């Protein structure tokens, strides 16, 4: 089936999400809370677009909107852009020192607003990606806590969590770099807890926490996890493939 995005006719599968269809067709829709690896959250609302379905216009969030045949999508009408600017103004009031948000602000020419007080240290926009990532990996060590304007992401009771493996998936998925993860060569500190780091047996670089190693061994059902970092794993795989290809005779 076909849909139209900003005048361009795009092919799509029924039920496919609009953001994905747009991306495939080289049409950029801004977003902060989207990750290709995780289900859409629709929390940042930057990806709002105007959808015209048989003459009926509505504002939808493209990251969770399943497309229907024949819809006409406008990704940057005056009204949509104005709403995006207000959303960015609100985000910037919350996290005034976030580079990512300030970058967006420049792109959308959002003026600085003196009216509101913001916490200079705050970078979290509560998009929820970190919580979803932790759920996806398995431990569910962090969660959103409370509701309304005092909502936050935390471990239970803000105490060091017994189930957090220190894997850092939350920090890596965070779009604004709001989760503090500090390493000193031997340890990694995240969510109020210091984790011992283990070294890669090939290059000797510390890359995995002891807790994560234990967790992965249990999940994979192996007694002793082969400690090879991502970089060395790729290199050794490449070597093996080269070796193998030497023995393959061309047809």
């Amino acid at each position, binding site marked *: 089936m076909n849909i139209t995005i900003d005048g361009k006719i795009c092919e799509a599968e029924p039920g496919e999400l609009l953001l994905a269809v747009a991306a495939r067709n080289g049409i950029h829709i801004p977003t902060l809370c989207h990750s290709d690896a995780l289900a859409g959250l629709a929390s940042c609302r930057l990806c709002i677009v105007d959808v015209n379905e048989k003459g009926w216009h509505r504002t939808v969030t493209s990251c969770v909107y399943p497309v229907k045949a024949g819809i006409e999508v406008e990704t940057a009408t005056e009204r949509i852009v104005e709403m995006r600017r207000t959303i960015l103004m*609100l985000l910037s009031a919350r996290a005034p020192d976030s580079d990512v948000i300030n970058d967006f602000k420049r792109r959308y020419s959002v003026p600085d607003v003196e009216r509101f007080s913001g916490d200079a240290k705050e970078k979290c926009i509560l998009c929820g990606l970190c919580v979803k990532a932790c759920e996806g990996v398995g431990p569910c060590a962090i969660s959103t806590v409370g509701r309304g304007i005092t909502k936050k992401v935390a471990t239970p009771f803000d105490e060091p969590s017994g189930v957090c493996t220190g894997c850092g998936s939350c920090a890596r998925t965070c779009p604004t770099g709001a989760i503090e993860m500090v390493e000193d060569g031997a340890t990694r500190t995240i969510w109020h807890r210091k984790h011992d780091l283990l070294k890669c047996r090939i290059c000797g670089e510390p890359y995995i926490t002891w807790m994560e190693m234990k967790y992965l061994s249990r999940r994979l059902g192996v007694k002793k996890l082969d400690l090879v970092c991502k970089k060395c794993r790729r290199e050794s795989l490449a070597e093996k493939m080269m070796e193998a290809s030497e023995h393959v005779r061309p047809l």
Partner: protein
Amino acid sequence: MSGNGGKTVLVCCGTGCIANGSLEILSALRERAAKAEGIDVKPLIKSTGCNGFCENGPIVKIVPDQISYYRVKRSDADEIFDRTLLGGEAVDRLLHVDPATGKRVRSQMENEFYSRQTKLALRNIGEVDPADIDDYIARDGYKAFAKALLHMKPGDVIAEIEKSGLRGRGGAGFPTGRKWKQCASYDSFPKYVVCNGDEGDPGAFMDRSIMEGDPNTIIEGMLICAYATGSSSGFIYIRDEYALAVKNFTCAIEKARERGFLGGNILGSGFDFDIQVVRGGGAFVCGESTALMASIEGRVGEPRAKYIRSVEKGLWGKPTVLNNVETWANVPLIIMNGADWFRTIGTERSPGTKVFSLVGKIRNTGLVEVPMGITIRELVSNIGGGVPGNRNFKAVQTGGPSGGCIPESMLDLEVDFDTLTEAGSMMGSGGMIVMDDRTCMVDVARYYIGFLSEESCGKCVPCREGLRRMGEILNDICAGKGREGDMEMLEKICETVSEASLCGLGKSAPNPVMSTLKHFRDEYLSHINGKRCPAGVCRELTSYFIDPEACVGCGLCRKKCPADAITGSLKSIHSIDTQKCIKCGNCMDVCRLKAVKVR
């Protein structure tokens, strides 16, 4: 009614009356009845749900005599028993006084508060004992379900509901029949039927009254829908603060199971259905349908985008019909009496009645059910008895915290789903808060935005951050720190929040601000530019004085002043010491001559 040829005493045991001691009246009457000698047939003493006239509770009714007593005390129990039940005469002092004629009236039908109402959803409340399923059956209970199950095809049931034009009483007004029809069309099982009893609007108690006072009508409505859509499992989500509703509903489910109305092979038809009570943890947002379903599933109560509707993928991804308590209560009546009958009540686009809770600055605080299309004037002035004291009506806030304020100029608005939305408010679940001229509309907006800031789920940016910033601005304005451009900033945020938020809560959250900005703009201007709160509510902007022209020196304000800030001898003009005044506003409230004014 009484079943034993004698009389029946119905003691209102709604939450309001219980708080005023109706359980003690009930036991006193029962004790007296147990001791009574020399009568052939002892009267029945029953507890019922809420009669609605909560302002004048506890209420005791005697049938078949049709005598209603108000503001009854425990000490009145013996007299009621001896004089009315044994002697057959009314106790005058406990009767209702008609405000127009000053005469005492015996029956509810002579009381303007009741005579102007049309009770459909509330038809049994105050008449039946919610714990006694036989009371419900005696009033044609479960007849509609039997009719549907044994004499109608599922498609006919849906067609009848569709034809009736019944719209969801939870607030959005979505056509109930269409919802059922869509759910029935999906070939995916199991299907679920859910009752939303998470009423959370401040000042609203419509659903509570039905759940407490007539749980069987909800069960019957859900049964009819389950049969029509092919569901075998139902849930009722009741907020846990409604302890009595949870208790009465659980009891009603057990009794319905005992009688074979719930469970397997109902009425020997092969149809199975059962209902489970789920207690809500007190989050306002869980009244939103998708958040409610997440909560039932045991997940965090956050809404999801509804591009795929719950009728297709609801609870655990299965087709689900979710209706509000009051909607369910209407269903048996429509099946029993037909869609054509239902359409004779109310308006063309909103047939039937609506239950409203009348609260705030109004004489007859309570619960009323009226046909759609009634004017706000009739609701407030005639049924509600108008604004008490010598104050003037200012606005009525409808639709709960995310509703809007309707000004005096729109008192003749005929209330239905569409007119209220066009007026910048909404029907919501039916809360109506009446405000008089001692209410500051900026303060009202500030209060509701504060409520919503705490009760928003906090998931999406426009709602969470928008409410936070609107709250900051409104707090500033009320504290005298309003700035130029604040109103424009509020409007700008409102526009984005109402359009770009994820769920209904966020989309309607700006209503209190937008409607007050529209209808009471001058009050905002006085706060921001004049640094003055005309209603005398915002303390930082208020300074009281006594108008020497109006003061007669009655001394009432002086007596009521907690700070001893008012001086003056009897029959001479009083004055307020602004240094001592703590700006509580007591003096202004008590002065019958409106001599206390705001500078």
